[in-house]
């Protein structure tokens, strides 16, 4: 069994890296959107992505929605004296001329009350609402439950 996994992993590693889908709204560019496969729908899922702001004004991600979950919410994993907790993030700042990543151990979109099983290899849409730039929808690629980074690559990688 292990050998089969190893072989599959090799095939996956040898395959061409997929380009990340990128969407824009105003001066914001959203890319590298990925999630982890879920076991059923009882446990929360997660979405990670990267937001770039090429404009001259600060903006902020203020909410997310998706048909994949009834209660999606922005969270931030916070370490305080070695203790991890993940409070609700009222907003995720996207500074002018900068970028912010939702990534493991930091900001994440927490998908509570999943409406569907998140299956590896599939995609589902997530709509982001920014304070100033408005809404934009991006397809999120579901990766392995043990994934820790997006397998797709950005155009500049």
């Amino acid at each position: 069994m292990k050998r089969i996994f190893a072989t599959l992993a090799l095939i996956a590693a040898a395959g061409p890296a997929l380009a990340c889908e990128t969407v824009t709204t105003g001066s914001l560019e959203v890319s590298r959107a990925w999630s982890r496969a879920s076991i059923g729908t009882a446990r929360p899922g997660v979405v990670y992505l990267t937001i770039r702001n090429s404009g001259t004004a600060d903006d902020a991600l203020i909410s997310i929605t998706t048909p994949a979950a009834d209660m999606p919410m922005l969270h931030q994993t916070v370490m305080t004296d070695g203790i991890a907790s993940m409070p609700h993030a009222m907003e995720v700042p996207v500074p002018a001329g900068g970028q912010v990543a939702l990534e493991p151990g930091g900001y994440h979109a927490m998908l509570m009350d999943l409406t569907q099983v998140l299956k590896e290899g599939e995609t589902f849409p997530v709509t982001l609402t920014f304070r100033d730039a408005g809404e934009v929808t991006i397809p999120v690629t579901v990766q392995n439950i043990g994934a820790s980074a997006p397998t797709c690559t950005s155009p500049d990688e």
Partner: protein
Amino acid sequence: MRLSKLQKGLWALAAVALMAVGAAVVFIDRSSPSVEQAEFRPTFALPDADGRLRSQADFPGKHLLVFFGFTNCPDICPTTLAEVAQVMDDLGELSDDVQPLFISIDPERDRELGLDEYTEAFHPSILGLAGDAAQTRAAADSFRIYYEREDSADAPDGYAMSHSPALYLISPEGDWLGQFTYGTPASEILAELKARL
């Protein structure tokens, strides 16, 4: 990994410096046994998913790689369990000498959700343990780790768990050997284990 006293000192300094800047990637080297650490032997007696009570004595000759977490933790718990899975694969035959344990700090809900299917999704070698409230608190106290339930409208079922997300290494004799803080790359954990096995 044999380090001179000077090297150990430098590593300790580096570790402190890294912690000072808030870096997540810090391995606290405890390879030099002190009297205090030799006395530090965490214990646990917790049922697995089949209800069998498990303790250190069930894993003779094995190093234990222990993580306290909960299965409703979608952000950092998968990252650490995936690293453990990577380490176990990379250890090859040496993996027979290592037992990874996932101790639930949210045992009631985790038993309902299914402990085995969760740990097996990461690696078949990871054994999930979920006791009652007293067993769980006793194990955590013994490892000197913290966890707490926090009521929150922003979490599934109205509560979330805050917890120490490090990975603990225990010798076959039961001695606490050290901890890998959250975010320690699998390669570092692998190197440390290989040096000890």
